[in-house]
C-alpha cells in the first residue's frame, strides 16, 4: 500500500533582510496510514516549516509533497484549500478558536465553511462524536472564553477530527499548556489514533510529547538527522526516546 503522505527532497528558502535563509535542506519523509509520527527538534530547526509544507499551508522552494496521491505543489490555491478542508485537520499551539462561536459551532466550522449545515442529520452526529471524543459533551454550548486552556485545545482537536481527515497535523499542541493538561491533550490524540485509525503528524520540541508517537523524526538545521522507531505502546514513557537521543548525542 502506498504511503498516505510522502515528502520528496523538500527545501524551503526564505529571504530575510536581503539574505537567503534555508529553513529546510532536502527533507524526504513518508507516513503510512494510521501511523502516529512525531517531528522533533530544537527551536529554529525547521520542524514547523516542515509541518506547514506537509499540510499544504505553504509551498516548498523545491521538492514535492504528495498527499493521498495528490501533489500539493501542483494544485491551485483553491484546490489546495479544498484538499486541506476535506482531507486534513490542524491543531495549533495557540488554540485559535473563533471567539464568537460556541463549542458546537467551532467544531462544526469546517462543515459550515464547506457550505453544509453542521446542525443537520449525519453531520450533527459527527460533531457530537468529535465533541464526545474530547470529553466536552457537557460544555458544548460554552463559548471559548468560558473554557480552560486545555478545554479550548480539546475543542481545537475535535474541530480537526470532525471531518474524519486522512491526516491530522498538530503543531506544538501542548506548548501553551501545563503538564497535566498537556497529557490530556496527548491522550486524546493517541485515542483517536488507536480507536479510529487516525494518521497523525505531531511537531514538538518536547520528548514527553514525542514519546506518544510510533516513530520520531529528529530534525536539526533543516534536515532529518535521525528516525527513531518507538512502536505502538500503551505506556507513553519517554525513557526509551531520551536514551536513544542521548546515544546519538542529541
Amino acid at each position: 500500500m502506498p504511503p498516505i503522505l510522502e515528502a520528496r527532497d523538500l527545501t524551503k528558502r526564505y529571504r530575510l533582510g536581503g539574505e537567503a535563509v534555508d529553513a529546510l535542506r532536502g527533507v524526504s519523509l513518508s507516513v503510512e496510514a494510521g501511523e502516529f509520527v512525531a517531528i522533533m527538534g530544537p527551536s529554529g530547526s525547521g520542524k514547523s516549516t516542515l509541518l506547514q509544507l506537509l499540510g499544504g499551508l505553504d509551498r516548498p522552494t523545491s521538492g514535492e509533497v504528495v498527499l493521498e496521491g495528490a501533489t500539493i505543489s501542483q494544485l491551485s490555491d483553491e484546490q489546495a484549500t479544498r484538499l486541506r478542508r476535506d482531507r486534513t485537520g490542524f491543531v495549533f499551539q495557540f488554540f485559535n478558536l473563533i471567539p464568537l462561536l460556541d463549542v458546537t459551532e467551532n467544531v462544526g466550522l469546517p462543515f459550515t465553511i464547506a457550505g453544509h449545515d453542521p446542525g443537520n442529520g449525519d453531520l450533527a452526529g459527527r460533531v457530537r462524536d468529535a465533541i464526545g471524543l474530547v470529553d466536552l459533551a457537557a460544555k458544548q454550548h460554552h463559548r471559548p472564553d468560558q473554557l480552560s486552556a486545555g478545554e479550548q485545545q480539546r475543542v481545537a482537536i475535535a474541530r480537526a477530527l470532525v471531518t474524519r481527515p486522512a491526516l491530522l497535523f498538530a503543531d506544538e499542541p501542548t506548548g501553551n499548556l501545563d503538564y497535566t493538561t498537556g497529557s490530556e491533550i496527548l491522550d486524546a490524540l493517541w485515542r483517536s489514533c488507536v480507536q479510529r485509525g487516525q494518521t497523525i503528524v505531531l511537531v514538538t520540541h518536547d520528548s514527553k510529547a514525542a514519546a506518544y508517537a510510533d516513530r520520531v523524526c529528529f530534525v536539526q538545521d533543516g534536515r532529518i538527522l535521525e528516525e527513531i522507531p518507538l512502536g505502538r505502546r500503551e505506556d507513553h514513557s519517554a525513557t526509551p526516546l531520551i536514551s536513544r537521543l542521548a546515544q546519538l548525542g542529541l
Partner: protein
Amino acid sequence: MRGLSSFAWRSLRARRARTILTLTGIALGVGILFAALATNASIDRSVDRTVLEAIGRADLRIAAFQETGLSDATLTAVRDTPGVAQATGQIERRTYLQATLGSGPRPPVTLLAVDPSLDRTVHDRQGLPDLSSDGEVLVSEDLAREDGLAVGSTIVVQGAAADVTVTVRGVLPGNGPIFDGDGRAAVVTLQAARAAFGPIGLSRIDLTVGPGVTPAAVTQELERRLGLEPYLLFTPADLAASLRSSTADFQATTALIAAVTLFGGAFLIFNTLSMSVTELFREVGLLRAAGTTRRQVHRLVLTQAVTLGALGSAGGIVLGWLLAALMAGYVRSVAGVPVEAVEVPLAAVVLAIAIGVLVTVAAALEPAWRAGRISPIDALRSRPEQGPAIRARLRWLAVVFAVIAVAGLLAWPSRVGDPALVRALLVYGLLLACTIASPFVLGPLGRLAGLPFSVLLVPEERLARGALTRDRGRTALTVGALMVGVAMIVALAGVAQNARQAAAAWVTDVIPGDEILTAINPVPVDGATAVPEDLFVPGVVRVTPIATFAVAYQGVRLDAAATIGADMLADGRLRFVEGDRTAALTGLDAGGTILLPRSVAERLGLHLGSAMAFQGAGGKPIELRIAGIIERGLPGSSGEALVIGWPDASASLGVVGADFFAARFAPGETGAAARPRLEAAARQLALEPAPLDRVQGAVSSALGQVFGLFDALAVVAVIVAGLGIVNTLTMNVLERVREIGVLRAIGMTRRQVWRMVVVEAGVLGLVGAIIGCVVGLAAGFLMLGLVAAGGLGVAVQVPWLTLVLAAVFATAVAMLAAFQPARIASRISIVRAVQYE
C-alpha cells in the same frame, strides 16, 4: 518633545492610505461647513447689493397696496411733506415681450417704469446708462442673454392699452434694479409704461430725507398726511430682512447637514487614532518604560489629531469654496436672491478651520486618554487590548456630539429664527439618542440585515455577523455615522415629498379650475358676474375671476384674494374648518364677510364671527366679519391669502380687475378638445393660459431644485460614513489576523474570506440603513412640524421609494468600502497568521 512630535508625524506617514482617508473625511465635513458659511456670507452681500440697487440712496419706500397704485396726488403730498428732500415714483408690472418671428413664447418680463430725471437723484445708478427718451429701454443682463438682445435692438412691450416699441439703450448688470423675479427685467420711462398700460398709478414712491432729518420723523409726518390711499412704508433694512428671510430655511438646513457630515468626520478621526493607538501598543509601552510621561503620550496622540485636523480643514476650505459656487447657483435660481460671486470671508475660513480642529481634538481625547493608560508591563508582555468598553465609547460620542452642537451654535446663521434652531437641535438630539441606543439593537438588527446575504452565502454571513458584535462600541459608531447620513437623506426626502404634495394639493384644493389664464393687466370685472364672454368656449362650464392684492390690517400687510363664492361652492373648492360652507360662500358674494385661512387665523388670534377692520380705498375704513375658517387660503404673493368677495374688493378695497381666471372644463371633458379653443380665446384677450398641472409642476420643480441640493449634501455625509467603514473593517481585519489564518488553514478559500468581509460591510450598511430610515422618518416629521406651522398644511406621507433607494445606496457604499479591507484579509498568509501573537 520635538522627537515625540516627529514620531506622531512619522506614524501618520507610515499609514498613508488611512491618513488620506481620514483627511478626506475631515475635508468633506469642513468643506460642507465652509460652503454653508461662504454661501451665507455671499447671500448677505448680495442682499445688501440688491437692496442698494433697488432702493439706492432712498431712505424710505412707500409701496402701494392696491392695483390702482398710488395717485399723483399722493406723490405731490409726499413731496410736500416737511423733511422729504426728493421723491420719485416707480411702476412695476409683469408683462410679455412680443415674440419675434420664428421664436416661441418667452417667459414674462418684469417692467420697471421710472422718472429718469428724478430717478438718478434718489437711486444710486452710477456708471449705468440713462434713459433719454420714452422710446428707450434698459434690459437686464439675463434678459439680454436669453432673448438675444443688444444695444440698438428693438422690442415690443405688450400692454393692456397698446403695444409699445422701444429700443435697447443699455444692458444692466445682473437682475438690474428689480428686487426679485427671475432676472428678466426691463426699465422704461413712466410715460412709456402709461402708454402701454393706460393711466395707471405708481407702484411705489422712493424718497430721501433732507439733512438733519431722521427717517422716523418723516415717517410720522407721512402717516399724518397720507390718508388718501392705503400704503406701506419700508426702510432699506425692512427690504433686506424680507429678502434674507426667503433664504433662512436654506441656511438652517445646510448648517444641519454640515453638522451631520462633521459627525461622520469626527468618527473617522476617532477610529484612525484608535487604530494608531492599538498598533502602537508596544511602541507606546516602550516609550512609557523609557520614561515618557502620560502627559507626553497624550500630547503625542493629540499632535496627530491637530495635524490631521489642520490639514483636513485646509483641504475642506478649497472643497467648500467649489461647493459654495454650486450652492450659489441654487440660491440664485430658487430663492430669487441674485448671488453672483462666491465670497471667501476670512471669518468663515477661520471659523471653519477652528471647528474642524476642535472636532478633531474632541474625537482624539478618548484615544489619547487610552494611550496614556497603557501599562509598560502589559504592552511588552501581551497582545493589545481589544478596545475600550462600550460605555467609554459612548461617553466619548456624547462629548463629540456636544462639541459639534456648540460649534453648530457658533456657526448658526444669526438671522435664522429660533424655531429653526429648535428644530435643528431636536433633529440633532434624535440622531445622538439613536446612535447611543444602537449597540443594544445590533444583535437582532444584525440577524435581520443578514437575512438577504444568508440566502446565498451562509458561512460568510454567519461569521461576518458575529464579527460585528465583537466590538459593539466601534460597530455602533460606524453604524451611527452611516445612520445619520441615511437619516438625513430620508428626512429631506420626506420633507420634499410632503412639501411637493402639499403645494400641489394646495393648488388643486383652492383653485376652481383646470386651466389658469393670467392677465398682464387687471381685467375689469363688473361686480361678481361679468367675465369676458369669449372665454366661455364649448366645453368650458365655469370661468372664475380671481384678483390677488394686499390689505392693511392693524398696520400689518396681509395677502388677500377676491373671488366668487358661488363658483367655489359649485366647484367644491375650499375646505372649511369652521363655519357653514354654503352660508359663508353665498355670503361672500353678498359682501360684508371674509374667509380666513387657518394659519392666518391662528397667527392673528382671530375666530369665527370676529370683525376685521381694513383701511379701504380713499382712506375709508371697511369692516368685514369672519364667516368661515378654511384649511388653506388662495395662494398670495408671500403665503396664504384671505378670501374676500368681489363686491367688497372692488367697491371698498380698490381692486379694479382680475389678475387671473380659473376655467373649469365640463365633467367628462378631458380638455383635449376644449383646451385649444380656450387657449386661443384667452390669447385674443391678452391672457396667458397654463394648465393647472403645469402650475403644480412648476411649484414641484422649484421645490425639487432646493431639495436636490440638500440630497446631494446628505449623500456626501453617507460617503464620509463610507470612509469610516473602510477604517472599521480594516481594524476588524487587523484584529482578526490569526482568526482569519485559522479559517484559511481549516479550509476557507481566499474568495470566501473576501466575501466574508464584504458581507460584514453589507450587514453593517443595512443595519445603518434600517436605523437611518426609521430615524430619518422621525426627523422628517420633526422638520415638517415647523413647515406645517409656517403655513403649509402638510399631510404626512412616507417616501417609500427613497427609503428603498437610501437603503440600497448605504449598503452599496458600505460594500464598496469593504473592497480594500477584504483584499487585505484574503491575502493574509496562513503561516504568519497562525504564529501571530
